[in-house]
């Protein structure tokens, strides 16, 4: 078991400026395969911006992003998806007017190279089977024929993770999955995440420290766009600087 951990994502001196404001400031970040890394920090620390830079939603101002040893800095979102990075959004992003089945289907078929306009989509038996197994995994099988906006909010968050997972990613970015859920719903979601996402490499942006402490292998703390501290949950809990800027109010 002594094999060296494999770095899957590497950010080198990444900057993002909006006008004069440095939203992300010289960030260096390494994510190991199989790791669940939590990204925490006060509001406006640049967490979502950082995710946007990784998925190509925003362009970096300077610096480099490597994924599985290949540079992806200047690729667009859809290309990065095919390299193996998937993501959920802070505000749930689904195909709102489609059924749960169609939502998952659309994500599963995205791995195909050619979209034949002359055959019925349901002829794709492999896509159909994969869609059904994803419905099984997310536990949304019974709701498969509902329009996804009819789902509860918590179920919508799970569906979005199901969509992201359907692209068979090597790295999954979760942007505040428990945002907008009450504590009971949060607990249900976390339990579901544990079973759904086991073995996945994940970057988790999260405000709920309970969730972070429960799930994270390592934590990176972002403050004014820069990495303030990095380490195991226990180390971060005890870190004086982190206490000051972030956990301060709770521990005072």
């Amino acid at each position, binding site marked *: 078991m002594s094999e060296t951990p494999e770095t899957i994502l590497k950010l080198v001196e990444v900057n993002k400026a909006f006008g004069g404001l440095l939203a992300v400031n010289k960030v260096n970040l390494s994510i190991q395969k199989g790791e669940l890394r939590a990204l925490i920090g006060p509001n406006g620390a640049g967490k979502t911006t950082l995710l946007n830079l990784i*998925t190509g*939603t925003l362009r970096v101002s300077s610096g480099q992003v490597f994924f599985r040893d290949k540079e992806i800095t200047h690729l*667009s*979102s*859809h290309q990065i*998806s*095919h390299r193996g990075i*998937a*993501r959920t*959004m802070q505000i749930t*992003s*689904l*195909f*709102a*007017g*489609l*059924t749960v*089945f*169609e939502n998952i*289907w*659309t*994500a599963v*078929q*995205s*791995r*195909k190279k050619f*979209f*034949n*306009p*002359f*055959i*019925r*989509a*349901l002829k*794709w038996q492999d896509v159909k089977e994969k869609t059904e197994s994803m419905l099984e995994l997310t536990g949304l099988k019974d709701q*498969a*024929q509902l329009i996804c906006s009819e789902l509860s909010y918590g179920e919508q968050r799970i569906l979005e993770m199901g*969509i*992201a997972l*359907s*692209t068979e990613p090597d790295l999954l970015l979760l942007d505040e999955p428990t945002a907008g859920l009450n504590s009971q719903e949060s607990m249900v979601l976390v339990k579901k995440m544990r079973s759904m996402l086991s073995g996945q490499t994940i970057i988790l942006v999260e405000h709920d420290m309970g969730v972070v402490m429960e799930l994270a292998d390592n934590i990176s703390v972002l403050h004014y766009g820069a990495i303030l501290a990095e380490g195991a949950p226990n180390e971060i809990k005890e870190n004086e600087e982190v206490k000051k800027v972030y956990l301060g109010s709770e521990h005072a």
Partner: protein
Amino acid sequence: MLLDKGKSFGFILIFSLILLVFIALPFFIDLFYQTFLTELFVWMLFAISFDLIFGYTGLLSFGQALFFGLGSYTVTISILKMGLNTELALLLSIIIPMIFSWFVGYFSVKLSGIHFVIITIIFALIGNIIGETWTAFTGGSDGLTFSPPPFRLGLFKINLMDIKGNYYFVLALVALSYLFLRRMVQSPLGKVFISIRENEDRARLIGYNVQRYKLIAFIIAGGLSGLAGGLYGLTLKYAAASYLHWSVSGHAVVYTIVGGMGTLIGPVLGAGIVMSLEHYLINILQATDLVVGIVLVFMVLMAPKGLVGLIQSKLKRGKTSV
């Protein structure tokens, strides 16, 4: 979606029945109504081509008039000035608008929302101005008239100077186009278009090259709008610069909204209803546009999903109450 099999049987039955009715009709109606229906079929085709780009891909294009006008000019000029066969002229009326829609789409699909709408209007306006001013080539607002030579297509000898022959020829091509589009929107490619309509950002994040598929939808819709224009030219034996005007796209917008966008059958119904309404009202009052306007406002307010949406929700309610 899982129940596609049953639906598809019902569809084949209904489609065949409607087709049979239209095949039989010319034996019971006079030449005036045969021409009226031929024109109606053309507008139905124009409306479903618009539904592909607007109803399925979510792009409100007012540029379809440009491709419609180009289609009618392609047919007219290839027959009148270049002496081509009718069937070749009609084939070109698909290909040339497709090339133009590639060009227009290349610039337009980079924009979204209202910016997309405006740039498509601008392209159509440019086309219209060129058509109006380059009179040596286009005949300007007077237009060009021609006679399509008869031709053979397999077993059939087709003479478009004959009103009934013209009727069947247009009916066949519109029916085929409908089947082609229906299959396409159910195909994997159709699912990509729909995902872009529903949530462009999400589609991009799961790996779809959104701009490329918007362009593909735009080119296919452009080709079919061109075919509609080509058939219109062949039916009227005439093309004019006014067909290029962006407001011609407005017909398709009205039919699609009244009938129900993203349904294909909706725009077909919408065209039938609105054109019949206009036809019967013209005898009573001059201002038919006013009535169409009122119908449109009423539909937008009371049934935003159009007639098809209204029927579907009634059926659903009926089912759940049983």
